[in-house]
Structures are given as C-alpha cells and as structure tokens.
C-alpha cells in the first residue's frame, strides 16, 4: 500500500470541499422560518404525526396482518459477466408466522441473459453492459418483490403492505404486474405504502426553481435535512407536483435529522394520516427513521457473503467455478 499521499491529490480534495461548500451554503443560509414559509406556500403543507396508543393501534389494524416487503442481492466476487448473483425477495407478515420467499439466480454468462441485455441496448453501443446488467438485475428483483407481495396480499388479505423503497420503482420496472397488483389492492381495500429511506427526489428545488434558481439540482433530502422537527411531516400538494397515480410525503420519524419519504397510491391517500401515524409509531425513537418491521424484514432477507460462497462451493463443480467465477484478483498476491 502506498503511504505517500501526493500533493496533487491533497489539493484536489481541498477544491472539492470548497465547491460543495459554496453550493450548499446557499441552502444553509436559508433561514428555517423563511424556508418553511415558502415551502408551505408553494408546494405543500406541514403537519404533525402522532404516536398511537396500543389501543388505537390494535383497533386500527383490527387483527389483520401488516406485510413488510424487501429484497436483497448477493453476488460472487467477479465482475460482469463473470459472476453469479442470488436475488431474494421476502414478504413477511406480522401475524401467523407467515412469509413468502421468492428467489432467482442471475447468471449474466447464460445465453438468454446476453440476448436480453442486447435487447435492452437496442443497438446503442455507447451504453455500458455493466449498466444494462444492473438494470436487468434490479428489474428481476422488483419483479420478485412484487410477486411476493402479491401472493401475500392474496393469501393474507392484510391491512397494509409496506415496501422498502419507492413504489415508483415497481411502476417503472414491472409496469404490467404493478397495474394488476394495484387493481387488486384497491378492490380488496389493502393499503400500500413505500417507505423510502434514501429519498432521491428533487421535488422542492424543481417546484421552486423559478423563485429560487440557486437551489437547482438539490435533492429534497438535502434541503429538508434538519428542517423538520421530530414527528413532523411535509405533505406535497398533488396539484403542484404531478406524480402520476402516486403521492409522496416527507416525514421526520425519529431523532435523526434526516427525513424519510412515504409513497402512497393516490386512491388511498385519504388514509395518509392513519398510515403515517402507524409508521411513526412503529419507528424507534433513536433509530434511523425506518419502521422496525422493515428493519426486521431487511435483516432477514439478506444472506451473508460467506453463506453465498459456501453455497456456490457446494453446488457448483469446482472446475466450473474456477474457470467462470473465480476473480483473477483473488489469486493476486499483494
């Protein structure tokens, strides 16, 4: 390892720091009161969440299940296309010790995968295969997650299905399945919510770009960082920000100054208060703002890297493994 840090690197880092500071100081300079004022004026309204009492909670849910849905990807050490990935999705119910697993193994080396990739590329040579591959993977995972959720919805008729991540993802990755799913959900009166830990939208800067051009390009999570009090939310006006049949809100559900996002179906938004309070109630005060149920599902759906390696070692012929999936890097002596 090199211990001598060259001067050029140091000075480049200094420059980066300066640039970032300049960019964000304008937002930081926004006085909290003022900021809130024009956010409320232009784009939505603030409100307060409430922790539910045990009694209210029980009555609200009425003995029905809450389903948490999450997925995971584990892959062997090589790089595209010499690797193998295990995709898993889990829908887990709070009642009845019920869960649905969906699993797929993704092997980019296989002919069918290569063809699928080329189909996506549509002749555009400039798109890196690795980018397309990750899209394929994510599409597959979204499909697994949605399938798990759909099965759980049919079999459990739950009160609420809680996805880890934005609902928009399913809408764009697996639109047909999503449409079927939404139809079913609305018919059966099953609530659906997406809990977004890392909010990737820039709705605020977008909506305010006329009045506040210098905010351009800033993410909502950056702008809202520290702007909401614990237990406070910001509801985005559906007129002012169009998001198809989805609606989004931002919540500060714990002592962490970072906000989280909630995606709901427009048709179910009348239940926003119940859903957001439920999520707030299920979120540990000192956590990172995610309801505990999703945390549980998240930790359950993952397999460890060593487990994956073990499985690969067991079920794949050693020759094949060496030839196709052993990264050159592992043999390198440092």
């Amino acid at each position: 390892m090199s211990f001598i840090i060259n001067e050029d690197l140091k000075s480049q880092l200094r420059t980066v720091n300066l640039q970032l500071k300049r960019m964000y100081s304008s937002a930081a300079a926004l006085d909290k009161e003022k900021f809130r004022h024009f956010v409320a004026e232009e784009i939505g309204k603030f409100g307060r969440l409430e922790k539910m009492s045990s009694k209210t909670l029980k009555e609200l849910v009425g003995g029905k299940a809450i389903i948490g849905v999450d997925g995971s990807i584990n892959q062997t050490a090589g790089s595209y296309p010499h690797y193998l990935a295990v995709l898993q999705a889990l829908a887990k119910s709070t009642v009845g010790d019920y869960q649905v697993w969906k699993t797929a193994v993704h092997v980019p080396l296989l002919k069918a995968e290569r063809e699928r990739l080329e189909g996506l590329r549509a002749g555009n040579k400039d798109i890196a295969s690795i980018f397309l591959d990750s899209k394929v993977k994510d599409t597959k995972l979204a499909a697994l997650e949605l399938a798990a959720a759909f099965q759980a919805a049919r079999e459990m008729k739950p009160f609420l299905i809680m996805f880890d991540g934005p609902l928009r993802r399913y809408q764009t990755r697996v639109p047909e399945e999503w449409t079927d799913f939404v139809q079913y959900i609305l018919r059966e009166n099953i609530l659906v919510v997406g809990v977004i830990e890392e909010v990737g939208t820039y709705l605020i800067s977008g909506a305010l770009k006329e009045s506040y051009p210098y905010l351009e390009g800033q993410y909502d999570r950056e702008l809202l960082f520290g702007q909401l009090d614990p237990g406070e939310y910001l509801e985005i006006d559906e007129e002012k920000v169009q998001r198809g049949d989805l609606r989004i809100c931002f919540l500060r559900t714990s002592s962490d100054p970072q906000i989280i996002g909630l995606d709901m179906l427009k048709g179910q938004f009348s239940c926003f208060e119940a859903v957001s309070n439920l999520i707030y109630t299920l979120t540990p005060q000192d956590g990172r703002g995610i309801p505990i149920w999703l945390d549980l599902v998240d930790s359950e759906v993952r397999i460890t890297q060593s487990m994956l390696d073990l499985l690969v070692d067991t079920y794949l012929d050693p020759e094949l493994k060496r030839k196709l999936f052993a990264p050159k890097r592992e043999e390198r002596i440092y």
Partner: protein
Amino acid sequence: MQVVGITDQQEVWVASKEVKLQINQILIIEDEDLDNPRGEVVCTQSYNRYIPLSIGQSFVDQTVLESLRQIGYNLEQDEINLAKVRLLTEATYPIKPGCSVRIPTFEEVKDLLIKSPNLDEAMVLGVIRGTEDLTSSLEPEYQGIAPLLNNGEFVSQKGVPFVFDPRAMQQYPHIGIFGGSGSGKSFGLRVFLEEIMKLGLPALMFDPHFEMDFSDPFPGIPEDYRKDFRDRFAIFQVGQEVGVQFEKLGVKELTDLLAASGGGLSESMVNAVETVHERRDSFLSFRNRLEGIREALQMGKSKIERVLKEEALNRQKEEELQQYLEYCNKYGSLPVSTVGGIIWRLDRLNRSGLFNRNIDPVINGLQSGKLVVIQGPIWLLGVFATYVLGHVYRKRREYRDAQLRREAAEYFPPFLIVTDEAHNFAPKGYDSPAKSIIREIAQEGRKYGAFLILATQRPTLLDETVTAQLNTKFVFRTVRGTDIATIKEETDLRPEESRRLPYLRSGDAFVSSAIFGRTLSVRIRAAKTTSPHTDNPFDELKSKRRQKEDEFFELIKDKLPIMEAQALEILKDLQTSGFEFSLDSVEQLLEQLNQLVRQGKLVKENSPFGAVYR
C-alpha cells in the same frame, strides 16, 4: 429445517424456525448423494437475531416493541433453533450445506430404537426421549404402553417406548444402574422388577431398604394400567422366614459369614475356625466346642491337670475337665482372644435368627418363577447373599453342566439377581463376603443363565471387575465428580451427555448399552406399584415424636404436680418403668416437661421452692 454453516463428515448444524429441536432427536438429512443419512441431535441452541434489542444501528425502545406486539408480532418468538447433529454413521464426504432436514417416521428409525423382535417377551421400561415427534407414526402395539409420571401425575406416553429384551443378555449380560441420591434408581429398579414379574422370570432381589413390596397400586394409577403382582413375588426377611442351615455350612461359608458379621476376620481367626469346625457341626455343637476351648485355654493345661489330680470331682465335672485337657492338647496354640472373637461373632449371627431358618423358601420361589425379595439389614444381607447366591448359582451350574454331559439332573431355572447398594456387596479395594460370588457370576454367569442387575449410588466404589462386565448401564442424575469420571470411563457417554448428568430430572437416564450400540436418553415409565413407606421422613419423625410425648405424658400424669426438686426421683422412676425416651439427665426431663407446657398440657408456676408443673 436445513443444514447451515460449515459441515464435515461427522457433524452438521441444522437450523429450524418451525420446529424446536430436542436433544437426542433423530433427523434425516436429505443429501441424496449420501443416501439421506440419519443423525442425532447432540446439542441445541436457540437464538434471536433481534435480541438484545439492537437492529441495524438502531436501538429499539420498549414502546415500539409493545406496538409490534399490538399488531400481532412478538419479537421474542422470532427465534431460530439451532442443533448440532451428529451423523450416526460417518459420511464418505461432507454433507451439502443447505440441504433440507426432516423429522423421520417411526418406520425409518425403528431399527435404531427397538432392538427386541417380540414385544411380548420384552421389558417395557420407559420412553426414549427426543422421539415425541414419532408418536403419530408409531405402530399401535407400541402405543400407550409406557405412561410417564410427571410431578406426580400420570401422563400418557408420547414417543417411542424403551423396550429391553432380556434375551439380549445372553450376548450382552448384566445391567448397572447408577445415580445419586433421589435420582430414580429405586424407582427404576421397581419398574425393572415389575417387568421381570410380568415376564415370569425367576429373580432374586436383595433389598436393604425394605422398599420392594409390590402389593399396593401406585396412587392415582389409571384403571387400565393397573396390574396385580401379588402372586408373582414373595418377600422374606433374613432370620425370620429364611436363614442358613448351620449343618450344611462348609468352612469357607462359615468364615465368610463370621467375617461379615463383625467387620472382617483376622488370619488367626480364619485359621481357628478351620481347625475347630467339623463337618456336620450344628450351631450348638460348634458353639459348645468353642466355649469349651475358651474355658480350657483360660484355665491352662497345668491347672486342669492339677484339679483333676487333687480334687474330688463328680463324674460329670471330671469328664468335662478331661475334655478340656484334650482341647488343650489339640488347640493349645490358639490365642484365647481369637476364640473369644469368634464366639462373639457367632453369637451376633445367631441372635439375628440366621441359623434358625433355611433357604428352602428362596429355592421354591425361584423354581416357581417368582421374584423373591430378601430383606434385612445390609450387613446381614451381605452374609446371606453370599450363602444363598453360592447355593443357587451352584444348583443352576450343576444342572447346566449335567445337561451338557447328557446326564440327568434336577432342573433349576436361569435367574436374575437384583440388588440396590451394590457397592456394599462387591466393593472395590477391599474384601467382602459376597464379592467373589458376584464376580464369578459377572464373569461366567452368562454361560449358565445367571444375570446381574446392580444398582448403586457410587459406581466408583463398585468392584472394577464387576463394573467391566455390565454391558448395559442406566445412568441417572450424578453430581459427584469422581462418579462422573468413572461413568465417563465405563460408558460411551459423549462429553455433551456427561455434562448434562448433574441436571437430569429424577427418572431420566442415559442408557449406554452394547445392545443398542449407542447411548439413548430415556425416561423411566410410571411404576404400577408403590413402596409401602414413601412417607416423608420428616413427617415420620414428627409423628414418632408426638407419640413419645403422649407416652411421656401418660407416665407422669399421676405424679402431678411435680416440683423441680423432685426431678431426679422421677427420672429414676421413669427409667425403671422402661420408658425408652432418651432421658439421661434431669435437664432432659425438665426440657420434656417444658415441651408439654408449650403444648398447653401442663402449667408451669414459680414457687419459693423452684418451678412447679401442674
């Protein structure tokens, strides 16, 4: 359920969410390449990923947990059961991680659990632990035959019965039953004996605790489980119904008896008995001879000669002295104290009634296929066992030998010998009368059809030669380190199992047996009968004390009022009246009176002359 983590050819870890795995449970590992091997759970753990309550980086507060509970989810339930599973036969290569594991059906593991082809000829001793999941696939004949007793309540059989085929003892003879106080040895012996009676096997039980009576049904026993054993056994007390016929004793037997009655016999005593005893001596003739020798030796040869010469004697006296003279000539070298010691021991034996009876009832009992229970204090039982075992074993051997030589001989059946406190009968390190016969049966009994069932609290104190011959061992709760060490050495208990020994419930045992080829964990079934005295010893103490106090009160009643100053006088009176309460001093008498005051039977007043009891 599936195999997780790193595996090898002997062991795998199995994780299960649905099923709680139990120690000793047998599982089938579905690795087809290895022919779906079977394994036994040797240790279990369960763990909860979420407790302590830190998930990811967040610490979970109680209110959130409570909310979770409100929506139907209890975090504490979300545990994963892990079990270390040892393969019953080593695999040729490691098991595949991730392959599934399932609970077998009875049929798939029957060969491991049941070793007796015919249930009618086998002893049903209990239930094999860890087989509860096989209950539903159990063949009907194996169901409902071994109810258990839990906290004094009968509960129906769950799991595969533990059956023991006495025929297997032909190849793997003798049984040891080890365990600390209260661990369930006596209870286990009772179950064994019930099964012995059920099968009509002749057996001899030496019962130093006077507890092996089978007349009373176990309290609360279900009606259909009851069995009347009253015509299947006979109880004899040494010196009351059975004893030894002095005339038939050989010198060896006699020295053994004398040794047992008084803590060993010195070389010179053995020598003396050998010289003095004559064939066909009766107790009286032997006793009189010894007495005469003692008199003679005490007088001394010269004194006897002088008296004979100088005094005018009647004929009887003269004959007596002549006899003494002869004794002096013949036994002059024996020390007087030696002869005295023999007489003392002989009298002790005689007082027990030992010589007034014979062993015919025992022989008859065995001949008719009964369980013969012999009761007596442990020292006497040892003596008697020596005699009776030597006798019946010889009878059986003679019959077998004659049979081999194709000669006619009186039939004598094969039999079992059962004893509690076996370390007293065949102790390690020193001699005891019964030891050599027990050793002989341990080593050769199999050839003749004589089998031992030996129970002891202290396996470490049991003769090693005998221990080594016990092919099946029941190991109950054992706390003492030295005994655990002995058990480890003498059985095939694995380290995990010997670690559990101190924590076994009463009635649970590991069975380490050459017949099964591996250790089984067993719970002994509920007994059908009960010992006549299962009273709590403290209740007994209390009632005895009450009784004595009442007696005492009766005695002093007419002496009231009693002044403190009269105490000594009254004490003397009481002592002559034969009252057996140990009242040796005035203080004790007064304490006794005070006790009655406390009970409100007397009133104590102070007067100028000391206390007065009214």
